[in-house]
């Protein structure tokens, strides 16, 4: 039977020129150009530093299934998330159809293998709905980006021009793909109906169905032209889009799958100075950290390529929220811009100038509290902490360290604490402790458990209360414990994160040695930064627990009994602030809450930003000494969040959070209305003797 319309594979333009030539040329040219572009884009990755990302394939595949295919993190921003999920799945479904169409232009009757039977019927039914859904998602996205313009996408003047036009252009390209694919089919079906043939079924309500109804009255010849025109518009747009993707933020369409596969699997750690170089060999390295672009690892550059400029990282970033000169999104975008301009598609690869000063500013890199909110949020696994720490390593290596940090760093080197206090005073907090005997390993005492106090809790007047509260809990729970006293040095969590790797190595070796000598079987700490360092950065230590875990276990075992709220406390509403190094970096969200809830009659509310979306208090360790450029304190914002949640007591489980919260309460003028307390203090006040 004569076909209703001549297909692109058989059509002759102006009656003599076979369009099959276009059908063959377009894919050859498109794929050829795309291959060239990708080769140029991959070049900087090949030249970059090594990164160890080929291990643990099972976990990586799980990540791909969950975060990439499952779009797991997208609904955290509901509106944008749903739009993205629609377009993402539409693309996945339609990629089969688009490939089939390209081949149909050469081989008329081509049908994707497997789509010949019932599976095909199901597929063709759904792909029309997919195209329609993508089309409407695109329309909504255009309105959203073009008219409503969510603040998240704003470009501060200092960061260059915004990407709204690029975003809308790409949405238009996607819309064109959807419309042309539907028109191509609608023209054919309209002609079938006109000629009284058995018409192909078009799912009602879809774009193709809608176009078919409009086109029913058109002449066969105009339907024929439309059929061919729509085909080549689709073909051309398809290959144009393919080659346009690696030009900007839509590169993520290609790279995100790989970026998620290679994303970090571990939490709470910082990558080594150089992969393949052990801690002992560090002295042999010529240079430390990232100073120029080629010092980045290939995963860093893949991150830059992958950033979709969605702004979620910066929207969650506490430094950005208080107007510090840091917006993680621009760490990626500036990195990508650098890669594109210095590794151009044509011509020589150029430039190896220092990054600090030219691309990133000192203040930008020192502003990060390493809270991890950005990485937690990124829907495609882009990392920031490793890059920031590596750039800090580079600055430390060049001696470029803010004056306010030099003194504490040098005190850490000389005295093992950032305050320059005498080692022998580390255990002074035990002097005022009543009803609880703290063993001192330095005196030759022996015990099962080590309470690792760390610097701030040992030396700071206020935080010594936390040390005493923790000791009381351990005593009440019947834990046989001791402290290292003058032999303890700072855990170095922030020393590492501020880029002074060799000082961290010294602290780590010293502490590891004295802990092993003490012969303890378990380590407990009340400081999440120490917890993180000992658990994730030290090696071969006994298991480490945070005091909240000790409390929960002791309560469950009946070793620790807590009494109910007093009359004085009855009107108080408590809220728990998740410390970054307990929550996001170590996933301890439940234990501190359970510990609070173990106090009979206590009223606890949640802040809007809690658990893995907790808002950093301002940072701990060396960050307390850094003098940032900022409009206000992170802590003040956080205290106001607690107020908004209806709380009047902020419970935290980290001495640095407590410092920042107590300061913030004063700065915010909320003294008397709001108070901050450490979890250990709250629990120790409620111990049933």
């Amino acid at each position, binding site marked *: 039977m004569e076909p209703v319309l001549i297909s692109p594979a058989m059509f002759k333009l102006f009656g003599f020129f076979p369009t099959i030539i276009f059908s063959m040329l377009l894919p050859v040219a498109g794929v050829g150009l795309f291959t060239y572009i990708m080769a140029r884009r991959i070049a900087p990755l090949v030249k970059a530093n090594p990164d160890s990302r080929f291990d643990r394939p099972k976990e990586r595949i799980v990540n791909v299934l969950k975060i990439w295919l499952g779009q797991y993190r997208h609904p955290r921003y509901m509106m944008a998330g749903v739009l993205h999920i629609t377009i993402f799945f539409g693309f996945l479904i339609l990629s089969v159809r688009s490939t089939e169409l390209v081949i149909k232009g050469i081989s008329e009757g081509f049908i994707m293998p497997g789509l010949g039977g019932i599976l095909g019927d199901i597929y063709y039914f759904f792909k029309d709905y997919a195209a329609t859904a993508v089309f409407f998602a695109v329309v909504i996205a255009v309105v959203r980006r073009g008219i409503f313009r969510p603040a998240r996408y704003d470009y501060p003047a200092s960061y260059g021009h915004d990407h709204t036009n690029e975003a809308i252009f790409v949405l238009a390209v996607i819309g064109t793909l959807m419309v042309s694919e539907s028109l191509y089919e609608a023209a054919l079906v309209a002609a079938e109906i006109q000629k009284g043939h058995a018409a192909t079924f078009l799912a009602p309500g879809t774009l193709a169905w809608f176009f078919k109804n409009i086109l029913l009255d058109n002449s066969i010849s105009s339907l024929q032209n439309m059929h061919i025109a729509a085909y080549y518009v689709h073909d051309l747009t398809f290959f144009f889009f393919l080659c346009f993707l690696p030009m900007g933020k839509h590169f993520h369409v290609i790279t995100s799958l790989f970026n998620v596969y290679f994303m970090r699997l571990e939490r709470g750690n910082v990558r080594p100075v150089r992969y393949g170089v052990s801690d002992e060999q560090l002295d042999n390295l010529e240079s*430390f950290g990232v100073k120029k672009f080629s010092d980045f690892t290939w995963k860093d550059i893949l991150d830059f390529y992958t950033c979709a400029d969605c702004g979620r990282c910066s929207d969650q970033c506490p430094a950005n929220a208080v107007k510090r000169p840091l917006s993680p999104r621009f760490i990626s975008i500036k990195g990508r811009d650098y890669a594109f301009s210095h590794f151009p598609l044509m011509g020589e690869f150029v430039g190896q100038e220092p990054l600090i000063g030219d691309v990133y500013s000192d203040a930008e890199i020192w502003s990060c509290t390493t809270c991890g909110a950005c990485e937690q949020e990124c829907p495609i696994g882009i990392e920031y902490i490793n890059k920031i720490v590596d750039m800090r390593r580079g600055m*430390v290596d060049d001696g*470029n360290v803010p004056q306010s940090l030099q003194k504490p760093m040098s005190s850490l080197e000389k005295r093992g604490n950032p305050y*320059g206090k005498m080692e022998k005073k580390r255990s002074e907090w035990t002097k005022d402790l009543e009803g609880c005997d703290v063993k001192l390993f330095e005196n030759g005492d022996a015990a099962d458990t080590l309470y690792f106090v760390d610097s701030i809790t040992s030396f700071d*007047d206020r935080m010594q209360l936390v040390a005493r509260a923790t000791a009381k809990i351990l005593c009440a729970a019947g834990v046989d414990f001791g402290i290292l006293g003058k032999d303890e040095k700072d855990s170095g969590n922030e020393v590492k994160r501020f880029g002074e790797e060799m000082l961290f190595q010294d602290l780590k070796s010293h502490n590891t040695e004295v802990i092993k000598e003490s012969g303890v079987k378990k380590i407990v700490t009340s400081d999440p930064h120490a917890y993180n360092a000992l658990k994730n950065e030290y090696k071969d230590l006994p298991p480490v627990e945070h005091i909240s875990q000790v409390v929960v276990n002791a309560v469950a075992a009946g070793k620790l009994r807590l009494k109910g709220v007093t009359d004085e406390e009855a009107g108080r509403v408590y809220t728990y602030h998740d410390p970054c190094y307990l929550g996001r970096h170590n996933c301890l969200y439940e234990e501190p809450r359970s510990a609070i809830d173990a106090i009979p009659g206590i009223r606890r509310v949640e802040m809007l930003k809690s658990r893995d979306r907790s808002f950093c208090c301002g940072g701990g360790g060396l960050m307390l000494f850094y003098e940032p450029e900022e409009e206000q304190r992170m802590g003040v914002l956080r205290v106001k969040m607690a107020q908004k949640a209806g709380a009047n007591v902020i419970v935290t489980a980290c001495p640095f959070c407590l410092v920042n919260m107590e300061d913030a309460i004063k700065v915010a003028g909320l003294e008397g209305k709001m108070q901050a307390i450490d979890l250990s203090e709250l629990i120790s006040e409620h111990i049933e003797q």
Partner: protein
Amino acid sequence: MEILVCVKRVPDTSENEITINKGGNDIERDDLVYSVNEWDNYAVEEAIQIVDKVGGSVTVVTVGDSESEEILRREMAMGANNGLLLTDDAFEGSDGKGIATILKAAVGKGKYDLILTGAQADEGAAQVGGMLAAMMDYPYASLVNRIEVGDGKLKVGREIEGGNQEMNEIELPCVLSIQTGINEPRYVGIRGIRKVASVEIPAMGAGDLGLDAGSIGAGAAKVKRVDYFVPDTGEGAEMLTGSTEEIIAKLIEYLKSKGGLK
């Protein structure tokens, strides 16, 4: 430009609790940690910056015992090219003039266009720079907080009481005592120190320097410390004691009661 920077190893007093020793003639030094004198550190940074701009080399010199080598290394990790340790039992007990005499002899062993010292060190005497300049018959500027290099001359800024600033032209060679704040000294990390850990630092004694034992050491010192003590709390003075919070609370109370705070 060839620059010599004179540095001193001093107790790190920022958080150290200083107590008088049993003999009553010095502070208790057992629990102290030492570092390079803060002013000297600024002087070394300034010297490195000058050499970065106009070329030349920086030499750091100190008068002290073998433990003083540590601060020379630290300054070399910072970027000083050479170190020179002046050490001899005969140097013990030198007064300011004795130290200046030793330094003068060291200056004579090299060829330096510019000599920098810190404005003062731990004992606050601020005398060695000026004495050295006088002995060398070099021009001298004290409390320098700005240096611009010219041809055979320098333009140096000096801080004047009341926040004023003066600029002077000074001919080379000269001696300058450097005020803190002239620059932002770079950080010296553990890695930097390890890199210079095995560099040989030459040491010179009285003989090497051609110094007559009569001009240096305790014997030649014309200034002698005869007592060292914490002054008794005088009338009208009261030491606030307690925790930081308590001290602050008491202070605020006082200020309020005396009308200093409303």
